[in-house]
């Protein structure tokens, strides 16, 4: 047998390992299948740490907020007393608007408003381990009834779709991922076209003909044509429109805060979800602070 000189061994090993991985890539590109064992192992191995991390950070935050971060409490109390006096003066005004306040209060609670829609709230426990993809990991999985291709939203709007499901966790592909997207339409003209990510914080709307009139600031909602998202869930706002041939280049600012997700809602069906209309912008903003609805 021919002996390989020791100084070439590492080079040979390097070549072998690189070749193996290139072949691995090639196999995946040709025959894309989800749920590879290494992914299951890796996610199963790290999920407990991520859960523990989320739990630990929550506890530390609680301890810090309730025991240490009380330096400004006295000043806040003073400010609140002043504010309270001012509020007493305006309370009579508010009483005359009690009926309106009741309506707004109902809208504030997302869960109450969508009690009939099967959905489950989930905590974000991880994100993509690299910048090559825009993905989040949530603490709900098969045991909670989550399956692949379910829509994920927040009270602000569409987030993405469930891409991989494990026993106690699931991975969600965000709209901003290069392979993410949703069927969408412009609110004013009802023109349809898919939205998709480019890896940037914004998303793009495709296949809108040049002759269509699209204005900056126009709202975009889901069309329901992708059989994943129900209709009329806010997707975003048009922030840039460039002419193109044959299609316009439309850049959209996502409605949901995709770079700062801590809790999300997984829709367990395609039942319609009512969102505040444009005129209720203030209400919508308030709704965004409402807790995610739980599975009924």
């Amino acid at each position: 047998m021919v002996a390989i000189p020791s100084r070439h061994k590492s080079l040979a090993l390097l070549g072998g390992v690189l070749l193996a991985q290139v072949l691995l890539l090639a196999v995946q590109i040709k025959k894309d299948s989800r749920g590879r064992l290494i992914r299951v192992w890796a996610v199963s191995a790290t999920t407990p740490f991520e859960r523990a991390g989320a739990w630990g950070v929550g506890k530390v935050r609680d301890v810090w907020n309730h025991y240490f971060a009380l330096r400004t409490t006295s000043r806040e109390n003073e400010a609140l007393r002043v504010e309270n006096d001012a509020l007493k003066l305006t309370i009579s005004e508010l009483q005359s608007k009690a009926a309106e306040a009741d309506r707004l209060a109902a809208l504030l609670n997302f869960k109450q408003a969508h009690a009939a829609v099967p959905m489950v709230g989930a905590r974000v426990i991880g994100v993509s381990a690299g910048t090559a993809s825009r993905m989040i990991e949530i603490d709900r999985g098969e045991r909670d009834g989550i399956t692949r291709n379910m829509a994920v939203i927040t009270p602000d709007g569409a987030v993405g779709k469930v891409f991989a499901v494990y026993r106690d966790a699931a991975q969600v592909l965000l709209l901003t991922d290069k392979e993410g997207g949703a069927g969408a339409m412009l609110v004013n003209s009802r023109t349809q076209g898919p939205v998709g990510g480019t890896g940037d914080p914004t998303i793009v709307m495709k296949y809108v003909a040049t002759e269509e009139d699209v204005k900056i600031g126009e709202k975009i909602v889901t069309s329901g044509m992708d059989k994943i998202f129900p209709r009329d869930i806010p997707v975003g706002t048009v922030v840039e429109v460039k002419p193109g041939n044959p299609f316009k280049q439309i850049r959209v600012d996502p409605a949901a805060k995709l770079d700062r997700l801590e809790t999300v809602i997984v829709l367990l069906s395609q039942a319609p979800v009512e969102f505040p209309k444009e005129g209720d912008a203030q209400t919508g903003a308030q709704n965004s602070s409402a807790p995610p609805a739980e599975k009924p």
Partner: protein
Amino acid sequence: MNETYELHTGETHIEVHKFFPGAILVVTVAALVLQSSLPVYFPRLNILELPLLVTIYFGLSRRNPSTGLLLGTAIGLAQDALSGPTVPLGFYGIAKTMVGYLASSIGARLDTEHPAARFALIFGFFVLQQSILVLIRRLLLAQPEAWFNLHLAIAAGVNALVGTLLFAVLDRLRRSS
């Protein structure tokens, strides 16, 4: 068993460092877990590439190309597995294999203990990794990807700075001779 020994390359004497048992495994797992957890709470930390920093550090310290490239392969494949189903296995694996190999090869020839040298090496390896990733995207995956942007330069600088500090901390895991 010797904890630290020396490579004699020409007239230079370069130490090969050993670490406490399990240190490499624990640091690697911690880097992967932190990489996928920290941005949940601090989105700006998404700019860090902790698995790359760990690959470079152990490559430079161990100074054995075979060990370096295998460690890079393992870390890269684990990162692929944790990056969601849209990132094919081997994407980060190939890049980190190359980084691990080159880091350990350079470590065997140069003294890489000085913070300035470490800063420059991390900066260079970060750019190299991104270049390899862009190549894989364009040539193997047929996906469009920009070659260079300002964000890459900023990310390389931030990672070099954090890496230099991190390396000083990781030096404490070395067994004393």
